[in-house]
């Protein structure tokens, strides 16, 4: 019995030992990576170069956390899950928005790695920018509204296209790369790709009874500013086809309401049809006005 115990103890410690042994294996003898990281705040700043030991499979966030622990304790970076699920660690690597936890250092194969904060928002410090504007837009969005009581009878066929926009992890990289925000600073009149994604599923939800076209065209949405140049789609880490599957469908709905004379005439003559049931719901079916 005692012998068995001793053996078990021995085994347990071996497994723990593995934890360290593995990392030593992975650390590449003598190799190192160089990163140039923006250090500064709202007032300005400069790039600082750091050199760190190379570890196999390392992502840029690993490198930054290493720098934080060993070289610059006050290097500000925002991160949470480190698994590309939460969307916290967005920053710009070589001018392109990336999740730091997903960007493998090896991918840059010897190129410069220059890490900067997202530039469509005010910089707080180092790699952290103030994204609170996004939450103001979130508050302005017309929330899910229904006149039915859950549990809903809803079929996979009706909702399968809603899974895609629902994958959004709110990394706000689409907002960052959108030139309407980053270059033209239309923060006051434009909601940005992330919120078109949200409005799309809200609009297409079989049980939702609100109408959002007026918000999108006339209100905070400002969808007309979008000129569908697809940068948002290119950077989405969740693989959402933001332009094709969220923005353009919403633009088409706006066109139905505001830019289609035949549809306008039909509404005048016959009344508005419900997108849910196809039933005519009266001439003033638009609850939002508009």
């Amino acid at each position, binding site marked *: 019995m005692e012998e068995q115990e001793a053996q078990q103890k021995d085994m347990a410690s071996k497994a723990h030992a593995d934890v360290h042994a593995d990392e030593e294996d992975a650390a590449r003898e003598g190799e190192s990576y160089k990163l140039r990281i923006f250090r500064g705040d709202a007032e300005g700043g400069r790039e600082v170069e750091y050199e760190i030991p190379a570890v196999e499979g390392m992502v840029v966030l690993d490198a930054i956390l290493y720098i934080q622990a060993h070289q610059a304790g006050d290097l500000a970076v925002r991160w949470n899950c480190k698994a590309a699920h939460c969307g916290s660690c967005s920053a*710009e690597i*070589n*001018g*392109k928005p990336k999740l730091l936890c997903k960007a493998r250092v090896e991918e840059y194969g010897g190129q410069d790695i220059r890490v900067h904060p997202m*530039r469509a928002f005010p910089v707080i410090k180092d790699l952290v920018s103030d994204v609170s504007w996004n939450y103001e837009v979130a508050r302005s969005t017309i929330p899910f509204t229904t006149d039915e009581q859950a549990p809903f009878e809803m*079929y996979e*066929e*009706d909702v399968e*296209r809603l899974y895609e926009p629902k994958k959004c992890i709110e990394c706000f990289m689409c907002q960052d*790369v959108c*030139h*309407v925000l*980053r*270059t*033209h*600073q*239309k923060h006051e009149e434009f909601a940005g790709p992330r919120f078109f994604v949200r409005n799309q599923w809200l*609009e*297409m*939800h*079989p049980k*939702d009874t609100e109408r959002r076209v007026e918000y999108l065209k006339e209100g905070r949405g400002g969808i*007309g*500013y*979008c*000129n*569908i*140049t*697809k*940068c948002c789609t*290119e*950077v989405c880490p969740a693989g959402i*086809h933001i*332009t*094709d599957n969220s923005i*353009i*469908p919403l*633009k*088409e*709905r*706006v*066109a*139905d309401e*505001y*830019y*289609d004379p035949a549809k306008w005439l039909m509404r005048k003559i016959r009344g508005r049809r419900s*997108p*849910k*049931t*196809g039933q005519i719901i009266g001439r003033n079916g638009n609850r939002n006005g508009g």
Partner: protein
Amino acid sequence: MASITAAIKKPIQRLPWWVGPITVTAVLTGFGIYTMVAVLFFDRGEYANYLSPFYSPPVNSPLPAWLSPAIFVLWLPLGFRATCYYYRKAYYRAFFWDPPACSSKAQQREPRSTENYRGERNLFVWNNIHRYFMYGSFVLLIFLTIDTVRAFLPEGSFGITLGSLIFLVNVTLLWSYSLSCHSLRHIVGGRVDCYSCVTGGNARRKAYSWLSVLNQNHALFAWLSLFSLLITDIYIRLLLAGAVTDLRIL
């Protein structure tokens, strides 16, 4: 397949950001000049049983002879493409640099000042009539399909020639481009919120899903069909000029 695209993608991503917009500008400008020249200076788009897609359907023109009757037809496909969601992206990026590319470096080069940027709110709000161009384009496509059938009937009976194959490829790509249109997808199913609640919903859902698959390749079809149009017209002009003879396959 995936590895091939990845292998191509890597080096392309390494190119400087301005390569993309400049290429698009060059190709679109080239196409525009060719079309202008072809339509304004050469009014004969017909050779044997082939009718160039630029001249279909043929119109009896009341205009002076130096003005090609093609302009009565051509505005429709041109308008369809000019208001197309894909081409919009292409020319906003290539011609207007709004933005030329996605990197911060490229976006810093945007020429328009913040006050002047209106997106699709001012002039470009007209792009919203895209759906009407689409309706018209489908009518044209019917004529082009008939032309393609005629191309397979050299001397009145069935036969396959190089020309007929070019026609077939061209019309297939044109159909693919038109069917993958975002507006069509919206009208067929995009505007319905609950398929199981409306009559015929299931058929619409299936059509929507199918069109969505096509739609993912809209940009590809946009380019391929542009080139196939060009090639078809050039082929006919080469036949007219006697530079080549039509190859009979069957």
